[in-house]
């Protein structure tokens, strides 16, 4: 056994001379960590799988992981460190646009491609520059899909909107949802709009006000981050409100059913992928993630982190070198890269992928595929 280990170590050492350095910037500690940690796990898993299969261009991928600590200064320093000390060829990570905007310009200035794993602000790459790429669709796409699904498929005529004021994600999602809903059903059919702030765990005052509405809205649209959704459904259903709830990809987390239990029934959300999809790619991801980390992917960000690494490796292969500028050009030319979260293509100058939106329904405690929407 020992001998095998020594041999393995030697192989590892010899491969260490031919490595491609890929930066992994995530907020592994602090307030964002429940969202970023699964993303980092997904990226690490993909890197390990790629290396086990022989690496990229015959070289091993060395993931240089750095913690942004949910702090703007630490994010900027981490980005500079990846550029100047670790000298990475390309960087992936980050699920929140305010942190992407703190680190992105540093990568842009250094000419290092930055693949943003989970931040869904549609104009994020334009704000940073031509070296920034997004793995997920923009919030506009999924909010439009959510509005259309609620109106066309659930047959809702009136809606209640609740959103978290603490994240640009939820603020943007609510704005795009309202825009499309007003086109479909008229602005008057938004019966009430209310807010809370991430960190408030008590929504009883808002829910009592919703409950006092007469007539009741047909559907509730709630723009929230994963940490709050289980709590939200439990308090809403606990107050006896049973309407269908529609949300964005923040709802794509097992916390919804673990914490929500029965309260999560009759809930729909728009997201990147259905993990119950029987396709090989998805099943392979779910089973190896579960095997490696001892639990199923915590939320959609795990799959996005996985695809971030896959997309980077794919671009390096197509570029035929680990040169940053060549990787950028290869990324920009991505057509039909098939990942866990769907097919990624960057059309024209756009660096936000053109992806379809999956709608999931919670049924008997399971996430069931409901519909695929291309708004």
């Amino acid at each position, binding site marked *: 056994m020992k001998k095998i280990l020594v041999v393995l170590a030697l192989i590892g050492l010899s491969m260490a001379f031919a490595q491609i350095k890929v930066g992994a910037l995530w907020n592994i500690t602090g307030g964002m960590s429940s969202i970023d940690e699964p993303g980092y796990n997904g990226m690490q898993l993909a890197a390990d799988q790629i290396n086990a299969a022989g690496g990229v261009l015959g070289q091993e991928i060395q993931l240089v992981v750095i913690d942004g600590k949910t702090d703007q200064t630490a994010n900027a320093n981490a980005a500079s460190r990846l550029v100047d000390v670790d000298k990475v060829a390309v960087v992936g990570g980050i699920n929140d646009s305010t942190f992407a905007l703190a680190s992105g310009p540093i990568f842009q200035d250094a000419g290092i491609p930055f693949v943003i794993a989970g931040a869904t602000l549609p104009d994020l790459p334009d704000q940073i520059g031509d070296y920034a790429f997004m793995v997920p669709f923009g919030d506009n796409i999924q909010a439009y899909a959510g509005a259309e699904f609620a109106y066309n498929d659930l047959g809702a005529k009136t809606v209640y909107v609740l959103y978290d004021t603490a994240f640009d994600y939820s603020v943007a999602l609510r704005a795009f949802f309202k825009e499309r809903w007003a086109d479909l059903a008229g602005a008057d059919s938004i019966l009430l709009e209310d807010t809370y*702030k991430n960190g*408030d765990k008590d929504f009883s005052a808002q829910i009592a006000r919703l409950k*006092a509405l007469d007539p009741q809205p047909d559907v509730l649209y709630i723009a929230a981050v994963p940490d709050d959704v289980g*709590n939200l459904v439990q308090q809403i259903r606990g107050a*006896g409100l049973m309407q269908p709830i529609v949300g964005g990809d923040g709802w794509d987390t097992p*916390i919804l059913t673990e*914490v929500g239990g029965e309260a999560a029934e009759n809930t729909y959300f728009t997201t990147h992928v259905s993990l119950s999809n029987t396709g090989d790619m998805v099943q392979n991801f779910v089973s190896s993630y579960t095997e490696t980390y001892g639990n199923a992917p915590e939320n959609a960000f795990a799959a996005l982190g996985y695809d971030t690494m896959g997309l980077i490796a794919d671009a390096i292969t197509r570029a035929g070198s680990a040169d940053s500028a060549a990787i950028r050009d290869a990324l920009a030319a991505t057509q039909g890269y098939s990942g866990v979260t769907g097919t990624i293509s960057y059309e024209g100058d756009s660096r936000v992928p053109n992806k379809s939106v999956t709608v999931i329904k919670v049924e008997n405690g399971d996430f069931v595929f409901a519909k695929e929407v291309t708004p």
Partner: protein
Amino acid sequence: MSASYFIQQLINGLAIGSLYALVAVGLSMVYGILRLINFAHGDLMMIAGMLGATLFLWLSKSPLFLFVALALVAGLLGLALERIAYRPLRGAPEVNLLITSFAVSSILQVGMQMIFSSSPRRFETVAALSKLYSFGSVQIRGADMATFFITILSALLLTWFTRRTRTGIAMRAVSENLDTSMLMGINPSRPIALAFFIGSLLAGVAGVLWGWKYGQVDPLFGFLPGLKAFVAAVIGGIGSIPGAFVGGYVLGLAEVFFVGFLPPSFSGYRDVFVFSLLFIVLLVKPQGILGQSKGRRA
């Protein structure tokens, strides 16, 4: 606005106010003696909640045992923290205690993140607690009723303890005036340790009640309620045990009423309102609703 809407919001305010009150008591007692704003206090509530969802999961079928076990764990942890981190600082500048409490808070939060990951976890509850009970047009959840009654019971027990038992009276004496009480032959170490133990115990109680009420805990959930509970303690009159309970309910009701009775566009400004309220109390009646003026010692 109908009467039942008002009553519903009143109940909501009392439920959240109970949790603030339980956390505020410990903050107030410790401040009364050591002048320490203990920023790590809310994290003890978090520890109880997190342990209830992880290591003590096997007890979740018997709520009473879980309740007692977690309260004791939190109380003992509070005692240990006092011994390790705060007692060596006795006689040092007050600000050192403050810094230590930041540091302890950071260790507890990051430590729990490293051990159990940062993802929120389900806190198991029992059917009786998650059930919705109807009283006419008003509905109350079992967990909210339990929270309210346990808080009132704690308040009564604590008042009895501090007024009728020797140890409790010694504790109040130390809080009133440390030097004089030492002249009276009270060794302050015991009352101080006891204040930490009881305060942390109640924070642990709040942690379990929190878990039952919201069904979800995570390593960072304690900080903000801890801060708000301090606000409650100041509003009620810091150092005063009945004041902490009153302050908790005033804050809980004020928060809920602010969101519930103003247009929804104001909901986001809740914290501005809460902390402005604090500001006004500080300026108009710095000793709080039930606090006694201590003149220059403030």
